[in-house]
C-alpha cells in the first residue's frame, strides 16, 4: 500500500493489518516487526508495532517513528507470525521532494494565525478577546 508523501525527520505513523494465508485479519502470535529500506535497499530503520484500539482491533498494529533522513521512495516491509506461519507485506512511501506540493499545502494549512488574545482585568479574571490587530 502507498502511504503518501512525508517529511524527513518528522513523525510518521506506520500501520499494518496482520492476516492469515486467506487474507483474514488475525492477531499475530507476537507483535509484528518492520524494516524500512531506502530506494537502494539499504536499511534505514527497524522496530516493532503495538496493538491498536481499545479494545484491541483484530490484527491492527501501529507505531510512530521519526522518518529517517533518506530521500526518494522508501519501502516498509512488515513481518509477523500467525499460528506459527510467517507472513510479510510491504508499504511504500515518498519523502518530501517527490510530490511535495501537496504535502506542503497541508503543512501550512495546519498553522493558521489565531486572532485571539488572552486578557485579564483588575480582579485577575482571564478571558479570550479578539486581537485588535486582526480586526
Amino acid at each position, binding site marked *: 500500500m502507498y502511504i503518501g508523501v512525508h517529511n524527513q525527520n518528522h513523525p510518521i505513523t506506520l500501520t499494518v493489518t496482520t492476516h492469515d494465508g486467506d487474507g483474514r485479519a488475525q492477531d499475530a502470535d507476537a507483535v509484528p516487526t518492520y524494516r524500512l529500506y531506502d530506494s537502494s*535497499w539499504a536499511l534505514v530503520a527497524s522496530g516493532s508495532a503495538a496493538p491498536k484500539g481499545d479494545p484491541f482491533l483484530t490484527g491492527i498494529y501501529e507505531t510512530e517513528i521519526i522518518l529517517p533522513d533518506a530521500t526518494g521512495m522508501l519501502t516498509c516491509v512488515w513481518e509477523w507470525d500467525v499460528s506459527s506461519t510467517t507472513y510479510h507485506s510491504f508499504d511504500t512511501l515518498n519523502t518530501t521532494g517527490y510530490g511535495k506540493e501537496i504535502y506542503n499545502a497541508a503543512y501550512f494549512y495546519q498553522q493558521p494565525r489565531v486572532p485571539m488574545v488572552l486578557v485579564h482585568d483588575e480582579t485577575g479574571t482571564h478571558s479570550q478577546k479578539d486581537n485588535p490587530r486582526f480586526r
Partner: protein
Amino acid sequence: MQFIGYCQLNQNLPISVVCKNGSGTPTTPDSTPTWKIYSRNFVDTITSGSLDASDFDSMTGFRKKFASITTAGGYTAGQIYVLVVTYTVSSTDYYEAFTFGVN
C-alpha cells in the same frame, strides 16, 4: 492494481514482491522472479529485468531489486507506468501488477 508512489527521473525505483503459494503463504519461488515496466496503455515495454535470485534479509519469498528510471531508458516525467512482476511457485505462475508515477 496497487499504486506504489512517485519516482524522480534518473533515480531508482525499488521493486519488491512477496512470493506466495496458492494458500497465501510466503514461499521461495521455483526460479528468479522477473519484472517488466510498460507504458500506461501496455503498448510499449519500457524496460525489464530480474529480481534477486535469493530471499532478502532472511524473509522467505521476499524478492527485491531496483530499476533505474532514466530519460535514456525511455521514461518521461509526468507519466504513469505499469510494473508487472512474475514468479512461479510449485510450477504455477503468479503475477502482481503495480503502477507508479515519474516526476
